[in-house]
């Protein structure tokens, strides 16, 4: 006959099992309080874990995009300041040209000055940025402009010398150059000399740059041009003006011819400065687009960060409250166990 409905074994088993369960919960709650995230994110979120992973990937994508945008921006910034430098030196040269238009001893000094400016110009255009050259277009691993004053004589230098000799039958430093008339010089400058700075001569003698600009992806949908290249007309005109004054033997020319040449150089430089401005404006527009895109993505990142948090985050205060509740529960369980175990009829027999 059965008179009771509880066995000794089940009393101790039930307290033991409830204790084990509470301890497991306590371990999870402690972890949640430490990290402010669910103890087992995947198990808690279930299919929403996929959403969380997607959001994190979107976060990483936007972060990378902003990083590369920063790199693109700094390259454009560097391009801008180089262009500005070309404009400034161009303006200085204009002032010097105006000052030496009188000829005489000034002619020799402006020739020397132009030579060093030509070298400076080529150096500036050949500026490297990171692993590539700023003005090489997509051909970024080669120096855009060849060195005019190199020895042995560079192709560009040789082409100018050849053109001069073919036109006038003398070399540039020949004193007989004084006999060249202003009209002949003008013709030479407009045709043969000018052609040296046009394709195909320009790309074979002077420039290794590509006319195709670097294009950068600045957001998932925007692909824009973010560089300029040494084949732009402004660079050709600058090269032409500096070479004209530096290497056509201006010190030997007669005064009218000399003035003709200086006027032409002034015209070219002024045009180049104007065109450089256009290039700067174009780049400025691209810079604006990059910074706008980055700003937009920063906003998105903030929102995504909040979404991830709302998915995975646990309120640490709530976890702390849970911990203290679990601790109380355990204490009660312990003291109950000991009291139940102390309750035995054996004591009273």
């Amino acid at each position, binding site marked *: 006959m059965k008179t009771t409905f*509880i066995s000794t074994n089940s009393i101790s088993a039930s307290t033991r099992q409830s204790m084990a369960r509470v301890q497991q919960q306590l371990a999870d709650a402690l972890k949640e309080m430490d990290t402010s995230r669910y103890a087992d994110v995947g198990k808690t979120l279930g*299919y929403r874990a*996929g959403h969380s*992973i*997607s959001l994190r990937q979107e976060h990483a994508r936007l972060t990378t995009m902003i990083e590369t945008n920063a790199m693109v921006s700094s390259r454009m910034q560097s391009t801008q300041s180089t262009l500005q430098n070309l404009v400034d030196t161009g303006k200085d040269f204009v002032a010097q040209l105006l000052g030496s238009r009188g000829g005489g001893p000034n002619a020799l000094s402006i020739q020397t000055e132009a030579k060093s400016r030509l070298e400076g110009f080529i150096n500036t255009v050949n500026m490297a940025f990171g692993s*590539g050259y700023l003005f090489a*277009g997509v051909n970024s691993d080669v120096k855009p402009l060849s060195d005019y004053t190199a020895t042995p004589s560079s192709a560009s230098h040789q082409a100018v010398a050849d053109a001069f000799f073919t036109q006038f039958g003398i070399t540039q430093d020949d004193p007989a150059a004084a006999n060249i008339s202003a009209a002949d010089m003008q013709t030479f400058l407009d045709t043969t000399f000018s052609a040296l700075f046009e394709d195909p001569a320009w790309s074979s003698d002077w420039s290794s740059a590509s006319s*195709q600009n670097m294009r950068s992806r600045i957001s998932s949908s925007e692909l824009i041009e973010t560089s300029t290249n040494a084949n732009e007309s402004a660079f050709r005109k600058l090269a032409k003006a500096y070479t004209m004054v530096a290497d056509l033997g201006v010190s030997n020319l007669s005064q009218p011819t000399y003035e003709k040449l200086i006027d032409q150089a002034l015209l070219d430089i002024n045009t180049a400065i104007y065109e450089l401005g256009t290039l700067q404006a174009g780049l400025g527009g691209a810079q604006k687009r990059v910074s706008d895109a980055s700003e937009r993505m920063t906003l998105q990142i903030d929102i995504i960060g909040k979404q991830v948090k709302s998915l995975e985050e646990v309120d640490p205060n709530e976890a702390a409250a849970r911990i203290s509740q679990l601790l109380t529960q355990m204490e009660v369980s312990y003291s109950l166990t000991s009291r139940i175990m102390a309750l035995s*009829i054996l004591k009273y*027999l």
Partner: protein
Amino acid sequence: MSLSSSLNTAISSLATTAEQTSVLSRNVARAGDSTASRKIANLTTIPGAGVRLASVTRVVNVALFNNVLSSTSSAAGHGAIVNALEQLERTIGDTELDASPAALLQKLSNALQQYSSAPDSLAHAQSAVSAARDIANALNRGNDVVQQVRSQADADLGGAVDNLNTLLSRFESVNTQIVKGTRSGSDVTDYLDQRDQLLKEISAEVGIRTVTRGDNDMAIYTDSGVTLFDVAARQITFERSPFLSATASGNAVYADGVPITGTATTMRISSGRIHGLAQVRDDVAVTYQSQLDEIARGLINAFAESDQSPVPLLPDVAGLFTWSGGPALPGNTLTPGLAGSIRISAAVDHDQGGNAMLVRDGGIGGAAYVYNGTGVAGYTERIGQLIDNMSAPQAFDPAAKLSSSATLGNYASTSAAWLEEARRSAGAEADYRETLLTRSTESLNKITGINLDEEMTLMLELERTFQASSKLISTIDSMLESLLAAVR
């Protein structure tokens, strides 16, 4: 009535009290054993001859016991699935670690994005290649984990079948004892306890139904109705597979010659560890394997190169990623085991003498596939194309139980979501079954278990009976003595 018959009655009382005490002490001895049921000594009064022990029975509750059996089966089955899912989850890890295939895909896309901002930089090219290597390695590892889980499940199935055969043969000997004992009227309660314990162990391996017949004989059937034990134990057979590759499916478990696992059989069991392990080996792990294979296939296709000749004649070939069947593409349907054989092409791998810059220029598949024909260093079209391919929707095989069209990254995170959801729901289900098992075991134990306090009070009662009977004997003795003295 005579004095001597009173004496006999008192002596019978002493004997039965002793037997009752022995049953009681058996109860006390097993008070801490959760499998023990309380034994009861039943007395019968014989007219004119006092009392004697009629039989020993035990407290039973068939309904609760069947509850325990069925919840043991389902808890064991779900437990096996949860275990396997926990192992598969290693391929994803915590979302914060960014170690899942989805996260690594994004890292590759990020590396390409960075490469496109500096296409002339070898360092960026190599970092893109190493991101590609990471995702290929992660897929290989995932493939290994899945195969390991499947092979382990197969080995465990073998272990479970061996265990089941042993249990059934032990069941047979215990059952024989019970039938014999019941027929001869001896005390079989301890054997019955033993048999119940064996049933619990059997039900952990496979879901069962039991039928009790005359003489306490018992027959066991699986929950699908295949005989496991009827008078004699039936043979459970299973042929282990040495190692399960992605393309191999393991063997079915046979009970009494009938397959009880696999979708092909009509007698498929629906609970127990064997069921859980078969589910893992033939369904859960296979599905996850297909998902990894589809990610690998998507990757190879997204990075495929096409013939760049003015008049393209050659077929598209594998680019940055290739596989055991490369350079041909894996096609448009599920290719089992692809996740295990995907790797980066030797042509771009610096360690194998390759050139990472081919990511930018193309031509991994040969000269006809060069995209950057002029060889300019700032060429970004191909990189841009690759980034676009990665984020463009692709067609996936619906056999992998995910969407049939998605971007690669989405597909990978949906796969992670699928796994986590399976883990969450299986975990919740296993918890529920486990609680159910605890509860029913507890209720069964409450009803059939032994209460020390009760036994102790019963002992007092027996003590009193013994004392009273002894007193009776001594009183009768003195009565007889005074009678004899009177006669003398």
